[in-house]
């Protein structure tokens, strides 16, 4: 898995998405290089989650396109994973949840148990391996969802508000896990409404407002010197709609 040619960079050109004539995203264009962590920011309803789903291929754009530019692009979907705001836990044990993801990616059964153990270990969930996933706490479920996503060694990992409904301690554990996944060289595209989290994790910021891309800049520049009026207001903590 590790030696597969890269699927990145990710190129998004003129991307638009509309439902029932309502334009939710329009004219989004950007490029994302490998091994970067991009945080998608913006007020509620800006289209952050939508952008992630379009990039991941869960939704088809109404205009424009998402394309993977790397040598491994023809198998791009097999080298991405996504974690959702509310973790979707299958009704089986924590370990079986990871085993399931590995089996879908065609990992042979004899390799799955060691990879599963490794992923659980990484998320600090080894002791809970046999526990039914759905009785775990919210934070544990989200770490399991991350471990499951990471177990297939994705080149690109999409995270949709992974800490939105967690308390600070659980948020910290999840952020640490994200940090480790990032340190492996995984490209991460993540939404959050937590500016502090964005400062802690981001290499780049993709700032959306009302379905449009307002800014895409290095994180340091975005926070110290936002270019657009909207971004300035957003960083300053003003209410933006």
């Amino acid at each position, binding site marked *: 898995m590790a030696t597969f040619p890269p699927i990145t960079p990710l190129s998004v050109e003129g991307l638009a998405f509309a439902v029932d004539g309502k334009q939710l995203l329009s004219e989004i264009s950007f490029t994302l290089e490998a091994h970067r962590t991009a945080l998608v920011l913006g007020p509620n309803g800006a289209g952050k989650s939508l952008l992630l*789903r379009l990039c*991941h291929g*869960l939704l088809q754009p109404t205009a424009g396109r998402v394309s993977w530019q790397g040598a491994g692009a023809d198998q791009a*979907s*097999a080298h*991405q*994973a*996504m974690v*959702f705001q509310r973790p*979707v836990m*299958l*009704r*089986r044990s924590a370990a079986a949840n990871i085993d*399931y*993801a590995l089996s*879908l*990616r065609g990992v042979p059964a004899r390799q799955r148990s060691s990879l599963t153990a490794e992923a659980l270990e990484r998320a600090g969930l080894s002791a809970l391996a046999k526990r*039914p996933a*759905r*009785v775990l706490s919210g934070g544990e479920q989200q770490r399991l969802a991350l471990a499951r996503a990471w177990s*297939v060694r994705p080149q690109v990992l999409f995270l949709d508000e992974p800490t939105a409904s967690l308390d600070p301690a659980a948020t910290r554990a999840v952020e640490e896990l994200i940090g480790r996944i990032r340190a492996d060289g995984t490209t991460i595209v993540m939404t959050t409404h937590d500016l502090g989290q964005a400062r802690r994790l981001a290499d780049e910021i993709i700032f959306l407002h009302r379905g449009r891309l307002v800014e895409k800049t290095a994180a340091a520049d975005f926070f110290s010197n936002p270019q657009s009026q909207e971004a300035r207001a957003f960083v300053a903590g003003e209410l933006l709609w």
Partner: protein
Amino acid sequence: MNDFSDAFATALSLILNLDQDLAEIVLLSLRVSLTAVLVAAVIGLPLGAALALFRFPGRSAAIVIVNALMGLPPVVVGLVVYLLLSRSGPLGPLGLLFSPAAMIIAQAVLVTPIVAALTRQVVEDLWAEYEEQLRSLGATPARAIGTLLWDGRFSLVTAVLAGFGRASAEVGAVMIVGGNIAHVTRVMTTTIALEVSKGDLALALGLGIILIALSLAVNGAASLIRETARRYQGALA
């Protein structure tokens, strides 16, 4: 009222003494209905799941039809299966009419829509929750159906048991295609109908008690399974 208490006493003694005829009838009933439910589950579970997952022209109509078929009148099913299996019918050469196999076919026809319709509902709810995650993980539709049936297993047990309740309680279809032949196709419900008309209330009542006990046991089992699931899997939360 004396009739009733006499019949009741005789019925109880038949049950407690494991009366040979009674046992034979009960066992045949179970064999026919359980096999029919097994056949219905093998067809109805994937069918219901497919209806939940796939979008195709005429899907709404198909769902309406399957739901409507849940209320299929047993005598009509009996009649249709009778026509198919009768000597001059298309399946006549199989020689199945008035055999337990014919009764299994008729009950399977009755139960399949129940299993399929209830499965469709369960799987559709589950799919709403799972769809994005399963697609993200790269599940093919066939694999997704298997996963949804497995993850919905505790709710689906109820669907299958509902089908069993229907099969074991039904009299019209097995009467027509089985013929209620003693020691061959005589089951609990057809015996009750016959014995009541003959005036032998004891055997009829004994069988009635067993039928009701069976229905209680089945529903008790369903509720136990759901409770267990809730406690250990958080499955229905």
